[in-house]
């Protein structure tokens, strides 16, 4: 429970990113059109898939470890 509280505080701290205006040539038009959200969405999907894959891999190794342990005794 305490750990969960720490993690939550950490996440909320991170999301408090402030937005400012810019002057040098940047991809502002791209942002204004809202197309940046397409990029963000795609990147978020990719990282989510990698996350799911890693978690499944972890479970698979855990299952193997269990099998080996049960066979030993």
């Amino acid at each position, binding site marked *: 429970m305490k750990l969960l509280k720490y993690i939550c505080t950490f996440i909320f701290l991170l999301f408090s*990113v402030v937005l400012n205006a810019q002057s040098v040539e940047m991809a502002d038009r791209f942002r204004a059109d809202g197309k940046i959200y397409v990029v*963000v969405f795609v990147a*978020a999907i990719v*990282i989510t898939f990698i996350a799911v894959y890693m978690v499944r891999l972890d479970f698979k*190794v855990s299952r*193997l470890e269990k099998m080996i342990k049960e066979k030993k005794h």
Partner: protein
Amino acid sequence: MKKTRPISHSWWWKVIALVCLLYTYIAGFLGTVPAMPILNETIRNLFFHVCMWMSMFVLMTVNVVYGIRYLSTNNSYDDLVAEEAARASMVFGIAGLVTGMVWANFTWGAPWVNDPQLNGTAATMLLYAAYFILRNAVNDEAKKSKLAAIYSIFAFAMMMVFIMVLPKLTDSLHPGKGGNPGFNKYDLDSNMRMVFYPAVIGWTLIGVWIMSLRIRFRLVEQSYLEKL
């Protein structure tokens, strides 16, 4: 009674890693970055490219620490950790080199410029490639582990010289090297820090996760082979 799990089987740090990464991939594109000439929008690569090196560096540190541990304990598990740490660090090193080449092509005009930092990291990759060649060249298990542990100390020291020291002494295009101001001078403002630090934490933990999975896989493999 609550069962105590080893750190490699607990989930809290893996959750932190994934949350940090998801946050990096959202805030890395949406967050505010300083408008710099030449760099323009590519300054966001800091969140993705530099983290590869941080992760590589942490894993190489694990490699040398467990190498030294092996020398004092002679426990084959320590050697296994050292080997898998080196393997995982190579993944991030190669990823760092490739992403760096893409970025350099845009900002410096060529994928490979004659920069001490670039040549130093290439030399480091070769140093660690030699680590695996050394491991494969020796058949005797104990001898192999001992040689690899001793070599990893030299490799780590050379890595520090190649990546951290030499580029600072000579001219380098990288920030913070050869008279160039570092990112923390004006580039890395507080908004970027808010993304950069979680990105480093996330990628480092992912690297450790990959390493721990590989170690666990190897241990399962070993105990299976013992039963045969």
